[in-house]
C-alpha cells in the first residue's frame, strides 16, 4: 500500500460517499420509522390480496407465511430496491475509476508514471474504497437504528440480527464492487464497465424477483447475487448465513484477484 495513493483515491471517493452515505441513512431511517407502523397491513394475509403477498415474497426471496410481521417489515426495509440500487450504484461508481475512468480522463499517464507497481496501486485503491464502503454500509445500519428510535420499543428489531444482515449486505456490496473492479480492469471506457455491472446486477434483481413466481427461474436462481442475501432468514432464525457469506466472499476475492492480475499485465493505451 502507498499512503499517497490512498489519499489520492480518497480525495475522489469521499465526495461520492458523502452523497450516498447520508442518503442511505435517511432512506433506512425512513423505512425503519414508517414500515413498522404498517406492519400488520404488510404481514397480515387478510389485509393483502394474494397477488400482493406474492410480490412481497418475491422481494424477500422466500415464502413468508410463517414469519412474524416485525421480521417481514425489517426484511423488506433491508432488501428494499432503493437501498439495494443505491448500494450497488456506490460500488459501481467507486470501483470503475482505475484504470477505465483515468484512461478516459487522460490522467492515467500521470498516475502510471509514478514509481509504484500496478498491484500496489490496485491495493491502495482497494484500501481507500474499503474505508469509504465501511462508512456507507454503516450508514444503512445507523439509519435503521435512528429510524427505529421513534417507534414503539416492542416493534423494534433485534439489532444483533440486523448486524448479521449488515455483514451480509457488506459481503454482497463487496462482490458487486469487485465485479466492477474486474470489468474496469478489462476496459478502457468507464461506460462499458458500468453497463456490464448494471446489466448483471439488474439481471440479479430480476432473477431474484422471478424466483418465487416462475418455475424456470428457480433452476438458475443460484446465479443471482441476491440469492445469497436473505434478511428475512436472518431475522427469523438469528443464525449467521455462513454459506451465503462464503459464496459472496469467494466471489469477491476471485473477482478482485482476476482484476489485479489483468491490471498488472495489461497494456495501457490512451490513443
Amino acid at each position, binding site marked *: 500500500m502507498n499512503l499517497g495513493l490512498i489519499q489520492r483515491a480518497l480525495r475522489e471517493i469521499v465526495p461520492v460517499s458523502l452523497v450516498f452515505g447520508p442518503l442511505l441513512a435517511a432512506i433506512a431511517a425512513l423505512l425503519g420509522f414508517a414500515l413498522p407502523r404498517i406492519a400488520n397491513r404488510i404481514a397480515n394475509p387478510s389485509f393483502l390480496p394474494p397477488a400482493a403477498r406474492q410480490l412481497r415474497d418475491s422481494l424477500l426471496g422466500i415464502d413468508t407465511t410463517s414469519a412474524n410481521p416485525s421480521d417481514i417489515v425489517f426484511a423488506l426495509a433491508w432488501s428494499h430496491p432503493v437501498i439495494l440500487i443505491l448500494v450497488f450504484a456506490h460500488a459501481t461508481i467507486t470501483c470503475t475509476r482505475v484504470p477505465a475512468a483515468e484512461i478516459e*480522463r487522460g490522467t492515467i499517464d500521470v498516475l*502510471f*508514471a509514478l514509481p509504484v507497481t500496478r498491484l500496489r496501486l490496485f491495493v491502495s485503491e482497494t484500501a481507500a474504497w474499503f474505508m469509504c464502503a465501511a462508512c456507507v454500509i454503516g450508514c444503512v445500519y445507523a439509519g435503521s437504528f435512528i429510524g427505529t428510535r421513534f417507534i414503539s420499543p416492542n416493534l423494534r428489531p433485534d439489532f444483533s440480527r440486523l448486524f448479521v444482515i449488515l455483514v451480509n449486505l457488506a459481503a454482497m456490496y463487496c462482490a458487486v464492487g469487485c465485479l466492477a473492479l474486474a470489468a474496469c480492469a478489462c476496459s478502457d471506457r468507464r461506460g462499458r464497465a458500468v453497463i456490464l455491472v448494471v446489466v448483471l446486477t439488474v439481471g440479479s434483481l430480476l432473477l431474484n424477483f422471478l424466483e418465487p413466481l416462475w418455475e424456470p427461474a428457480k433452476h438458475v436462481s443460484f446465479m443471482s447475487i441476491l440469492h445469497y442475501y436473505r434478511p428475512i432468514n436472518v431475522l427469523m432464525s438469528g443464525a449467521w448465513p455462513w454459506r451465503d457469506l462464503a459464496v459472496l466472499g469467494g466471489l469477491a476475492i476471485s473477482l478482485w484477484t482476476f482484476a489485479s492480475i489483468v491490471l498488472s499485465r495489461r497494456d495501457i493505451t490512451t490513443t
Partner: protein
Amino acid sequence: MPAAAIQTEHLTRRYGARRGVENVSISIPEGSLYGFLGPNGAGKTTTIRVLLGFLRATSGSALILGHDCWRRGHTVRAQVGAIPGDLRLWPWMTGLSALRLFGRIRGLDLLSRGRQLADELELDLNVRVRAMSRGTRQKLGLILALAHNPCILILDEPTTGLDPLIQDRLRAILKRLTSAGHTVFFSSHTLAEVEAICDRVAIVRQGRIVADSTLADLQRQAGHEVTISFKPGAPLPTPPDFLTIDESSPHFWKGRICGDVAPLLSFLAAAPVDDVTISRPDLEALFRRFYESPEQGA
C-alpha cells in the same frame, strides 16, 4: 564510452495489425540531450509508452539504467521524470497539493524544489488545475516531472502550450540538467527546438528510425546544397555524376552532393560559372528530406 541511460534493441510494438514502432534500436548515453523527432503518428509516443512501462514490447527490449522497462517498471520510474504529450491532471489539485501528494507517493519532500521550479517557470502553486490554462497546466506537469531531481527525463512534446519566454527557461533548465549528468529524452515534432538544444537526434518515420546521429553528423551525411549560376550565353557543361540536380533552368542548377566537395570545386574551375553557393542544409531541410523520401533521405 559512457553507459547507456536508455537503450532499446530491435524494439517492436504493434497494436494488432496496426503498426506502432518497428525494430527501433537506440542507445542514449548518460548526460545527453536526445531529440526524438517525428511527425504525428510516427511512433514517438508509443516508444515513450514502452519506456515508461505502459506497454509491453511485442518483441525486442527496452532498458533504462539497465532495468527492463516492463518487468522493473516501478524501479525505472523512480529514476525517471516524465511528461506525457497530452498532459491531464486531476482537476481538484492545486500545485502545492500536487507536490505534497506526489512527494508522499515517492517518499520524498518535493516542496522546496517544486517552489524553486515554480518561481523559475512563473507558476502560482495555489491555483486549482481546473482553473489553469493549457500552458499553466503544462508548467505544473513539468514541475512534477522535475521536482524529484530524476536521473532521466522523458518529455513528450514538453513545450506544448508554453509561451516563448517559458520555453527558453525550460531549455535553460534542461541544458543545466544535462551538464550535471542528467539524461533528457526530448520528443518533438518541432524542429527548431530540437535543433536549439539537442546534441543528438533520432528521426522516426512510420514507426522506424530513419536517422540517429549528432546534428553535425546528420548534416555531414546529408552533404551540401549547391546552387550554380552559369554565365549567360556560355555552353552548359554536362552535370557530373556526384551532383544530384533537384532543380534546373537554362543557366541555373540547384542540387546537392554527398561526400567531399573537392570534385565539385574541380568541376566548377573548368565551367563558365557566374556565381556559386555551397552550404550545409539546416535541420528543417534535412528533416523534410527524411520524411519525403521513402528511403533514408540523405
